[in-house]
């Protein structure tokens, strides 16, 4: 079974702090993704990566950066946390189609509160 893990389930940070969210997958997937999920807005893509050291902006990259130094690990960085970044953050990974069905496998999520 694919396993995607995230470093924290719950996190509380202060405005202006630098925040690191880490995601690790154990299935050698090429692609990894960071989303945020907010009530009424669904899932929105922040960044994704299709290879080590490669990254692409998603729909809402402002205020975030990412790092992928190893294939299994994808980090999301909030350079200076703000209250409007309070959200549920979901990491996902997948194989590049057509090697498999192409579905994304999600981690358990990190609920971040910025005060």
């Amino acid at each position, binding site marked *: 079974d694919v396993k995607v893990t995230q470093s924290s389930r719950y996190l509380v940070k202060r405005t202006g702090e630098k925040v690191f969210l880490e995601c690790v997958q154990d299935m050698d997937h090429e692609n990894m993704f960071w989303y945020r999920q907010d009530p009424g807005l*669904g*899932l929105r*893509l922040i960044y994704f990566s299709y290879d080590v050291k490669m990254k692409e902006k*998603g729909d809402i990259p402002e205020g975030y950066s990412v790092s992928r130094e190893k294939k299994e690990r994808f980090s999301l960085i909030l350079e200076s946390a703000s209250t409007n970044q309070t959200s549920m953050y979901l990491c996902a990974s997948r194989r590049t189609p057509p090697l498999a*069905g192409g*579905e*994304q496998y*999600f981690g*358990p999520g990190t609920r971040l509160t910025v005060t």
Partner: protein
Amino acid sequence: ELKVEQNPLFLSMQEGKNYTIYCNYSTTSDRLYWYRQDPGKSLESLFVLLSNGAVKQEGRLMASLDTKARLSTLHITAAVHDLSATYFCAVDRPGNQFYFGTGTSLTVIP
């Protein structure tokens, strides 16, 4: 910009009844995915639909895809309480981007 619309957004149904959730999307795609999310939990993959006319079934859930109509349906047969969750469809586009629908929150009432 690709839009993925689900309806209904909220669905309250009695146990034993049948119902269908609809997922419309605005541009061509040959891949469509259905996910389930329980409250406070992450998303779990339910179905992967990879071609026009694809139909997948698992238990009381059946998903289908009509790429010409840009429509997927998730049909629930004889609903049970355990099916209460939020269901998302997602469309896969070139460039490795998924576009998710807003979700359908299903509550099955005894």
